[in-house]
């Protein structure tokens, strides 16, 4: 008979470490999907996911069971991703001069015919990844959660541990930061 999540957690806390494996198996796809939003290289994604699970094992005592385990795990994942972004800040100063041809073409088409360019193009996906990489860690986290994942300010506050007013302030700054980068984008490329 398959054990419930609560039973598995209780078993782990009682010293049966093997009961942790089904939890890792069940929730790893979500952890990986979240980590892929913040890290580009697959090795980095794996490092983040691994760290999330090691932390989850160590901090399992702090899980009180009032909210679903998945919510608790997602909070841990988002905070680990944020720590990762802060630890890799120096890597984000790459210039836009190394845009690939499809990316440059997409940008040019956007300038001439903004309505005609497709958001589904691979070039747009790569371009947004580049822009996100240039944002500060907090701005990237906020833009990802608020704009891309379409989460509410309250949800973001719960996930990050920041207060609601702080999330609002950081969201305002993040949007401004992103616009500043976008304005610089063609300038970096052609000037």
């Amino acid at each position: 008979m398959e054990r419930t999540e609560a039973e598995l957690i209780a078993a782990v806390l009682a010293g049966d470490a093997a009961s942790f494996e089904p939890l890792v198996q069940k929730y790893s796809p979500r952890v990986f999907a979240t980590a892929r939003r913040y890290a580009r290289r697959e090795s980095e994604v794996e490092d983040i996911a691994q760290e999330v699970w090691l932390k989850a094992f160590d901090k399992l005592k702090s899980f009180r069971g009032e909210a679903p385990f998945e919510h608790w795990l997602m909070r841990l994942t988002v905070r680990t991703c944020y720590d990762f972004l802060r630890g890799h800040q120096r890597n984000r100063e790459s210039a836009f001069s190394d845009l690939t041809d499809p990316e440059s073409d997409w940008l040019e088409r956007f300038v001439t015919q903004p309505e005609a360019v497709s958001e589904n193009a691979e070039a747009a996906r790569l371009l947004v990844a580049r822009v996100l990489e240039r944002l500060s860690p907090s701005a990237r986290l906020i833009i990802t959660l608020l704009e891309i994942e379409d989460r509410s300010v309250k949800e973001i506050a719960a996930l990050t541990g920041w207060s609601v007013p702080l999330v609002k302030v950081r969201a305002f700054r993040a949007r401004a930061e992103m616009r500043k980068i976008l304005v610089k984008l063609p300038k970096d490329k052609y000037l």
Partner: protein
Amino acid sequence: MNQMSMNPVELQKKLITAARANPPGREVPYAFEKRVMALLAARSLNGHPVLWLRGLWQAAVSCVAIALMIGAWALFSPATDNTGDLSQSFESTLLAAVDQGAQTQ
């Protein structure tokens, strides 16, 4: 490309839409959960030297405490009558074995 002709707000919208349209994959590397479990097991095994170190450290602290107590006791204990020449007593004690050896020969 003319920088003035580009609308950053519109571009931001387009790029956000592009990001929404391409959610990240949920694939997990093969046997990832086994790797995590192996890491946890290895970590608990590595925990033993830490326990040893902690035990040795506690033992060292205890030894220092005992040495201090004995030192204090030796320093503050009342002086006994046989407080002759300390250097002579020390020398005779140290050379007692040599003297005994010489007598037997």
